[in-house]
């Protein structure tokens, strides 16, 4: 059972800040993915931030980290290399005023086709999150939805 294909991680109360290996995604390819983000924590004591980590897939398991796009409550344009299987990891980071943090991940894999546009609707509203990544036709209507998908890695011994 591949029930660990999707993981959510709760981070330690003593979450270490300032030690990050994240970097900005270069966004050097023509824009073909539009991300619309909505975040509402549902509590004044809770903050929610959303990020998109982008990886180039080398095979079904191994990936190369390319960079991170911070998502805000507007539309964000991202350029992803056409023809390259790309692992998209949407992450909601939840922080509590009185301590504690959590990371909720949603991953999928897309291989953008040349000349085709894609759209992602990302939301975290009052303890419920949803991510929809779709391929669009020429009129902007969704024609295909990418399902939630993790990497296919051998089980650790």
């Amino acid at each position: 059972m591949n029930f660990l294909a999707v993981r959510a991680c709760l981070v330690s109360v003593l979450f270490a800040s300032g030690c990050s290996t994240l970097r900005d995604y270069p966004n050097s390819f023509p824009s073909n993915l539009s991300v619309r983000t909505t975040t509402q924590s549902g509590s004044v004591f809770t903050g929610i931030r959303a990020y998109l980590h982008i990886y180039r897939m080398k095979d079904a398991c191994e990936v190369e980290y390319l960079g991170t796009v911070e998502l805000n409550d507007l539309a964000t344009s991202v350029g992803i290399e056409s023809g390259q299987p790309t692992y998209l990891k949407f992450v909601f980071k939840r922080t509590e005023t009185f301590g504690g943090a959590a990371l909720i991940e949603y991953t999928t894999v897309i291989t953008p086709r040349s000349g085709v546009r894609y759209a992602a609707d990302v939301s975290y509203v009052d303890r419920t999150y949803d991510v929809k990544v779709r391929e669009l036709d020429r009129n902007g209507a969704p024609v295909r939805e990418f399902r939630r998908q993790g990497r296919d890695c051998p089980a650790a011994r």
Partner: protein
Amino acid sequence: MEGRMLRNSLGLLPIMLIVGGCAGAPKNAEDFRLAMRSSPFTRTETFEVARPFRIVSETLQKRSDECFNVAVHSTATSVNIPITRTSIRAYKPTFVGGAGKAELHIQQKRSGGGMVEVGAPPDGYYRVVLDVVAIGPSRSKIDMYYMSPDDKYIRDTLRGWVTGERPGCPDLTRR
């Protein structure tokens, strides 16, 4: 002598009760339903939705696979003593579909951090069982059984799915 034997017996009594209670945990969905119906400390809900059975069933199958095939990893580090403990809550959804009737079972298995679940089924304790049946071309009836008020997020999520009001996944890192 008799007093010492009585004290020893009484010391074993709480242990026996705990083991007895845990060993009686429902082993399958039907046992869970029976247990929830008969216990005064648990909950059941019954309601109808103005949605076709096919739509409700497909939603439950698709969303449960996307949202409940997860493992929540928790890490806690003490401030005074540099010890880090990691525990895992693994969820398992089981969808059973048929003509005019479908079921969704949500199990939770906890491990790590020195935790041992005694008497639980192999995939963890049943937390919520939901039954849906068609009662008309555009109407479905829902029966939901849940273990504890702590499962409110799961119940609210499933209710959102069957009503179509909230299609998203629950943040299972929150209790």
